[in-house]
């Protein structure tokens, strides 16, 4: 006698439903997986595709869990607070080349894609504004830079990018990005090298 016939008559629909559910689940699971063949022809199945991960990831620029001991930002002489001049002015949100003031600032930092008020807060010029709309002080400017330069920001937090002074097993002193990179022209400027070592022939006998 076959196993199917062994089952009592009233159990049969239940088993059918169970099988259907299992089949549907398997199909659904198959759909959620991403499959492709790699170069050697092996089938690769990814349980959760990247796109799904991205959807699950909340796009936020969270404040860092720890604070970093940074020195005061390197403002040009007499420029800060900006509100000394800007408090009485109405912000002009139109993208334009500045002709009256700040003409010494030449933007050499993805200049085609941004202008002043993408980083400077139009409502309060003494602060900066992240893409998320969060307002931060100049002493937290590394978060602003970290919006685009995430890899550098990660390295900087671990002390791998940028100079750290202080103690190797004690308090450390960080530098803001702007201490080494001019935010409007960030490429590190060339330096004059110190003198080369003496050649053996030049050494006093």
């Amino acid at each position, binding site marked *: 006698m076959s196993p199917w016939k062994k089952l009592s008559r009233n159990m049969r629909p239940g088993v059918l439903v169970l099988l259907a559910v299992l089949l549907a689940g398997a199909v659904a699971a198959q759909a959620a997986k991403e499959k492709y063949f790699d170069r050697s022809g092996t089938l690769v199945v990814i349980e959760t595709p990247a796109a799904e991960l991205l959807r699950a990831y909340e796009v936020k620029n969270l404040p860092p869990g720890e604070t970093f001991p940074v020195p005061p930002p390197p403002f040009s002489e007499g420029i800060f607070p900006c509100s000394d001049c800007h408090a009485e002015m109405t912000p002009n949100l139109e993208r334009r080349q500045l002709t009256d003031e700040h003409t010494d600032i030449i933007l050499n930092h993805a200049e085609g894609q941004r202008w002043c008020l993408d980083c400077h807060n139009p409502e309060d010029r003494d602060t900066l504004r992240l893409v998320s709309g969060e307002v931060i002080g100049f002493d937290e400017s590394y978060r602003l830079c970290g919006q685009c330069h995430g890899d550098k920001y990660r390295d900087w937090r671990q*002390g791998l990018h940028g100079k750290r002074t202080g103690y*190797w097993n004690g308090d450390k002193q960080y530098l803001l990005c702007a201490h080494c990179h001019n935010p409007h022209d960030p490429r590190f400027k060339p330096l004059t090298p110190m003198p080369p070592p003496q050649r053996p022939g030049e050494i006093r006998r």
Partner: protein
Amino acid sequence: MSDKKKRDAKVFQLTRRKALKGLAAGASVLALPSRDAAASVWDAFFQKHFRRMTKSDLERVLARLEREYSSEFSQEVKVGATPPIEGVKYGYGLDLSRCIGCRRCVYGCVEENNQSRDPQIHWIRVVRLKKEKGTDLHYAEHYYNPNQVPEPGHFYMPIQCQQCEKPPCTKVCPVQATWTEKDGIVVVDYNWCIGCRYCMAACPYGARHFNWAKPQIPNESLNPQTHYLGNRPRPVGVVEKCTFCIQRTRQQPGRYPACLEACPVGARKFGNLLDPESEIRKLIENKRVYLLKEELNTQPKFFYFF
């Protein structure tokens, strides 16, 4: 006056009184060099190997050296012998993609570690390499002197003592004047070194340097905070090398080496290899690391990364 009496008046005649007088005068002349100086020469001659000194031996030696250096450089010079910190092994990292070859580290090191200005000794040698040739040292140039660095098509690699885990230099020393400390620093006892320079021949990095003449350091540029195994003034005829600034890094809390503080681009990293949270461990875990002459199995604790 008889002939005999005349002769006696002209000829020197030794009497017991005269002999005693002479002896006393001679003894006092012998005693003339100050007690300290005579003792100093004696002490230096019979000084033990650094690792065989008792605590009181060491204290006496340090006090003697402080006295000698202080009078030589007419300022107060401190000579310490801070022992290694428990649970610490030092490691160094250098970012090859950041270094611009400005040689600030070379001169920062000279100032900190009291290297001879004349004849010139540099513990750090910055080598310029061709980007298209990579780290092929056949194309290395260390006398480069352009107006501005970095130069296009080149990158720079500062080379100093790699503080090897298996140092070839200490193996060849016939008198064991150089050894690896517990914290991984390879040091030299300048009072024990006989100047045979075997270690210089053994070192594949050219990191050891010989004092061919008495090192000349202007009094005002001497760094008076010194360590017995590190930056104390060296005598002529001994070998010296980078010690990861032993006089700074063994302090509590430990300062960074002088070359790291001198670097304007932040290419230099330093920390404890045994601490998983240290910068050096983070970079070894997350960056591409290059060991200089890895094939020699010297196992450097100096990690180039990019």
